[in-house]
């Protein structure tokens, strides 16, 4: 198999000690790298968190590293020659961000022809398509978003979601800033992120960040103690900045990430006593999966990965602390370091299948077949491991828009909590949101173990009697009260304003209005009748509250909001 190829641009390693490395991990000022138009030193972006160092010594959490274009000089990757045309295409993919329309020779999918959603709901085909897309590639939709994305058409919507850099999220950032959160505290961190999910104009970016958080896991409970909880935010920003980058860059960065370095003990790994934890989980959980490596690979990998150490909120690679023995790793031999480990792993044939399976399960449906995964695997390989390309393939696949995928998963706690907040366009402080997702089984920044959340793989695991009741109580919180704990200060939803703004003049219109964006407008007549009946049953609300429809007729408040409660507590609303 391939020996470490010195001409391989991404990972070239001169052997002088203690060199400064640029943000891609290559030596600053090294010659013969063919830098024209290729790699360039990254601009240092201002992000909440640490002050970036003037001379970075490696990928630093919080720095923006632009997606790295595929190597320009026609080098071999894993021994296979790559055509210039493919290189150029892939480079455009990388440099333009994502999904530059036309690069991949975009296949226009006519979903109706493919027997997609149009076959399900003729009159509401667009709602189901759009609703499904926004639930999977984001956190669901408010009525305004439903309209906006619908008007773009499916492919246009996918483009907008992938090309997130073209959409401003300044409004979100200002609103979050105004909340004056303390990002050193886990509950504020969770609130910060849940509100991002609820308010962002870049839902797919946020969803992808959540995906990575559940794969490349760390937890605030083990990142160095309460003085370093901020490491989790920095890791989060790194994942967000690189969500659609090459898998190589993602792994390089996460290896150097301070939270990860602590969480999986790499920072404690010494060249004479390498620590196995990161080496094992990197293979078992992040790249290859069980069955593709041996205990020896774990030990050898651990030796190769030595040299990185946390340094406050940043990290440093110290070449003198790197174990310089020859390693035998996954069938290859050499004095490998972390860059080689990443290179070998991202090029390993098992990796794209492993990654594709996780992505497909998370975004489409569980237990995908080989045929389901192959297009994603091909995209991974052809694009030089570009995750944006893989996601484009996934979202435009027939499987994504198939009946099999529709409502095929139980919503995760974050999807449920952020989704409801988003759909109802709530503008509160989000104070109660973290407790809700935690009680539902998903505490952000605190996965149960390094494998992430079991519900990401088998979504049925999110639902049991306790978590089901918590979902109901969360809806209660949004619609009704100030919460059992008395802590939430958000206004209960003002239904009278919604009725006025949307000229709702009958119980049927009320049900249809909410069903259109909460339930894709897909409510069969029996269920619709049940809800309308509940709404119109004569009653008197304790306290006398009423909602007056634009017809002039008034209904008791408990019946009106009870109807909305029923819709959001319904079986269908639990489904993604």
């Amino acid at each position, binding site marked *: 198999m391939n020996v470490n190829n010195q001409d391989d641009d991404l990972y070239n390693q001169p052997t002088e000690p203690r060199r400064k490395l640029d943000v891609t991990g290559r030596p600053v000022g090294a010659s013969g790298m063919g830098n024209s138009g290729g790699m360039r030193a990254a601009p240092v972006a201002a992000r909440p968190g640490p002050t970036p160092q003037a001379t970075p010594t490696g990928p630093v959490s919080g720095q923006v590293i632009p997606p790295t274009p595929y190597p320009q000089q026609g080098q071999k990757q894993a021994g296979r020659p790559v055509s210039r045309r493919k290189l150029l295409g892939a480079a455009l993919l990388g440099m333009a961000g994502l999904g530059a329309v036309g690069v991949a020779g975009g296949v226009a999918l006519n979903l109706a022809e493919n027997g997609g959603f149009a076959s399900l709901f003729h009159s509401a085909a667009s709602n189901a398509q759009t609703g499904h897309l926004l639930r999977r590639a984001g956190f669901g939709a408010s009525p305004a978003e439903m309209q906006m994305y619908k008007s773009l058409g499916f492919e246009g919507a996918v483009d907008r979601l992938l090309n997130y850099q073209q959409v401003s999220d300044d409004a979100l950032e200002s609103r979050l800033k105004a909340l004056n959160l303390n990002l050193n505290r886990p509950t504020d961190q969770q609130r910060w992120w849940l509100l991002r999910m609820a308010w962002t104009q870049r839902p797919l970016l946020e969803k992808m960040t959540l995906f990575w958080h559940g794969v490349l896991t760390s937890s605030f409970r083990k990142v160095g103690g309460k003085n370093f909880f901020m490491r989790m935010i920095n890791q989060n920003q790194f994942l967000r900045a690189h969500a659609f980058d090459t898998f190589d860059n993602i792994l390089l960065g996460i290896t150097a990430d301070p939270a990860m370095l602590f969480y999986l003990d790499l920072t404690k790994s010494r060249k004479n006593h390498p620590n*196995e934890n990161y080496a094992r989980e990197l293979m078992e959980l992040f790249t290859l999966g069980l069955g593709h490596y041996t205990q020896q690979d774990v030990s050898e990998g651990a030796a190769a990965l030595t040299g990185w150490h946390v340094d406050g909120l940043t990290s440093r690679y110290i070449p003198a602390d790197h174990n310089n023995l020859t390693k035998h790793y996954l069938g290859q031999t050499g004095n490998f370091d972390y860059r080689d480990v990443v290179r070998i792993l991202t090029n390993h044939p098992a990796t794209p299948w492993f990654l594709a399976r996780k992505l497909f399960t998370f975004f489409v449906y569980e237990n995908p077949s080989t045929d389901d995964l192959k297009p994603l695997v091909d995209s991974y390989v052809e694009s030089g491991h570009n995750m944006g390309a893989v996601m484009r393939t996934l979202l435009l696949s027939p499987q994504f828009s198939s009946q099999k995928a529709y409502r095929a998963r139980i919503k995760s706690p974050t999807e449920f909590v952020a989704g409801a907040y988003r759909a109802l366009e709530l503008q509160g402080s989000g104070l109660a949101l973290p407790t809700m997702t935690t009680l539902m*089984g998903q505490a952000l920044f605190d996965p149960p173990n390094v494998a992430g959340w079991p519900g990401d793989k088998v979504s049925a695991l999110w639902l*049991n009697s306790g978590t089901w009741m918590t979902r109901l109580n969360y809806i*209660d919180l949004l619609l009704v009260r100030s919460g059992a704990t008395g802590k939430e200060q958000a206004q209960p939803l003002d239904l009278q304003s919604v009725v006025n703004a949307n000229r709702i003049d009958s119980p049927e219109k009320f049900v249809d209005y909410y069903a259109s964006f909460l339930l894709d407008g897909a409510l069969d007549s029996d269920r619709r009748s049940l809800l309308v009946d509940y709404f119109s049953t004569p009653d008197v609300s304790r306290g006398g509250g009423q909602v007056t429809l634009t017809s002039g007729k008034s209904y008791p408040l408990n019946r009106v909001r*009870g109807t909305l409660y029923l819709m959001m507590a319904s079986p269908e609303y639990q489904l993604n």
Partner: protein
Amino acid sequence: MRLSRRALIKDGLLVVSAGMMMPAIFSRGVASARAMSLEGSHFAQAASERTLIVVQMAGGNDGLNTVIPFTDPLYHQMRPTLAIPDAQVLMLDTRLGLHPSLKALQPLWEQGHLAIVEGVGYPNQSLSHFQAMDIWQTLDLSGNGSEGWLGKLVSGWVDQDGHPFKALDVGVQTAQALQSISTPVPTVASVNAYRVYPDPADRDASNARMQALMKLYSSYPKTSPYAALLDTTALNAQDGSSQLLQADATYKPAVTYPTGAFAEGLKVLAEAIVQGLGLRVGYVTLGGFDTHANQQATHAALMQALAEGLSAFYNDLVAHGKADNVVVMTWSEFGRRVEENGSLGTDHGTAAPMFVLGKPINKGIYGEPPSLSSLDSNGNLKYTVDFRSVYATVLDRWLGASSKDVLGGSYSSQNFLPQP
């Protein structure tokens, strides 16, 4: 296929309607219970009063520093910094001792209510947390199982009294050991949160609203996604929450439980037992055992949490007169490497001891001590007791269930429980 408790159990009898297909395991379990009750109604009767509490130590507990072979020179040689000094070890006999932070369990040993099974593992042990946990919980040695051994057990019980809490899992997610196709197990994170809040504007405590909701669930098309799960979950919740809340209102712990989620969880289980909710299997998890680095302090804290929680639980049951009917069993997905690593911690290992506690047990050290000199090629202990024999013992000798049916094979029994 939908299995609703109401449809299946009518007047205490299992009703199988024509054309209804049961999953194989369910029918296997039912046959087992019937067989048991035919063979020895006395035993079946007694068994229905008994409870098993399973405590999972998640992450891979370092067994060597838990039950310590302190007279073995290799123990000290291979763990120059991590070995517990002799003077600190709590002696069980002339060869073995407990980690000093397990002090709260010492009275249990002295009173004869603690048993230890040494060297527990299985062939070709996996060093992966997730594969190993799969194996311990589903008994599928390929690590690809889905139905838990306790889930099989629980789903096989004919519940004559309609107790929703014959099994109870404390936490936010149902443990894999309890997973089954037919019987979702109530999973309680906190008793207070285990209910549906009514709308204060409803004059009927939201009864009409709940009825309408249950109608939405029961009329949800059977062929729709997740129909069975959604329906049984809603039913489960409805059945259980009022019972649990009522129990909670009148229960008073007889001891002060230590702080922390683990002890809180044990308290919920104690409450279920004391208040007669019909609990047969309880499950609770203590996490954090994956001590790759700086193990000393972390492991000590975990040992303390384990011992103090279990001791409080035991004493609470004693004070309420329920200790005769409860057995606790601990497990972890693997032990840890014999030799310490360079980060003052230990890497993934293999065989480790299990604790079994309670008034009904026979005190002692069971199994075979694994050899520290004859290790496997990874430097790990070779197991001496198959974990399934420990399961078989609690199934056959304590719960009155056929271990052969539940485990899908015959395993020898250990003597930490008396022959029935």
